[in-house]
């Protein structure tokens, strides 16, 4: 096997971690018996997705993709807040 540099190793490990996080998040989404469980799963998936976009920006060597991650950071707060306010009856 050829020698793998530190950056490549980091990329591979983070890709594996993101992969498993997405899988576990989807499992929680599917089996979650209540809406609150699903909302928590969606919050997790949004945060993991920001990491995935940063990884993709590094892998494609286009750092302008990071702007998309900023929008996600906004949404991860907004979406959960909206559903939570709906469930407590304040929307």
């Amino acid at each position, binding site marked *: 096997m050829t020698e793998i540099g530190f950056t490549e190793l980091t990329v591979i490990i983070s890709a594996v971690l993101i992969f498993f996080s997405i899988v576990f998040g989807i499992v929680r989404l599917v089996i979650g018996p209540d809406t609150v469980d699903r909302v928590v799963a969606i919050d997790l998936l949004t945060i993991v997705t920001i990491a995935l976009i940063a990884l993709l920006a590094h892998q494609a060597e286009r750092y*302008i993709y990071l*702007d*998309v991650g900023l929008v996600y950071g906004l949404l991860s707060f907004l979406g959960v807040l909206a559903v939570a306010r709906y469930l407590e*009856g304040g929307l």
Partner: protein
Amino acid sequence: MIKRIIIFIMLGLMAMIFFNLASNYVENESLLKLGRYYAEKGPQELGAPNLVTAVVVTYRGLDTLGEVTVLFISAAGVGLLLRRTRRKQNDEDLEKADRREERAGVHKPASEIVETATQLLLPMVILFGIYVFINGHLSPGGGFQGGAIIASGTMFLLLALPESHISRILIAVTESLSGFSYVVIGVLGVILAGGFLDNRILGLGEYGDLFSAGAIPLIYCFIGLKVGFELSAVLDRFRKDDTGPEKT
């Protein structure tokens, strides 16, 4: 039961069509003719690094004008369908009624954490929206995305402070002014440059600068303001609590 069989057969037929489409699909190895033209000529002609922006604002600018019109019509349709059934047609009267309703406290107030976080975050969200549509020609983003982010800021405000009041008159004035300016810039393109919505009425500037690419940042600012205020108006319409039975 018969209905289910018919649905099943129909979905099966569509799946067959889609399977044919997907099995004959070959990934493009190079750009098609139109895309190649835009990639070769776009940066010199218009001075915009983001080719999607160049296509949306200038090459297909008339489509975008039509699309903004469609959005305006749908916002007006939502306003028409969810209008008050009272006899007060006057804007001031409606606003007074809104204020009364909001003082009466129809909505449950948010917790203190949410309120504080929103007061901290709201200016930054609006600033981010403005960043997105001013930099539309340099980085991904543009008027539609920036407008949607500004509408998300409105959404934050409505979620955290349900008693807050959004002025109908401000929305109407801003929306009309930005739409009007958009069309005026388009007509100026006919007079001063090559055609409707031509961006070369201003100098192209240095390639990659903030103030470059002619009128593209200006046009995207107007589109962003228009889309942002329209979507805010749609959200405000959906928020108003008048679920009582309709009097006819």
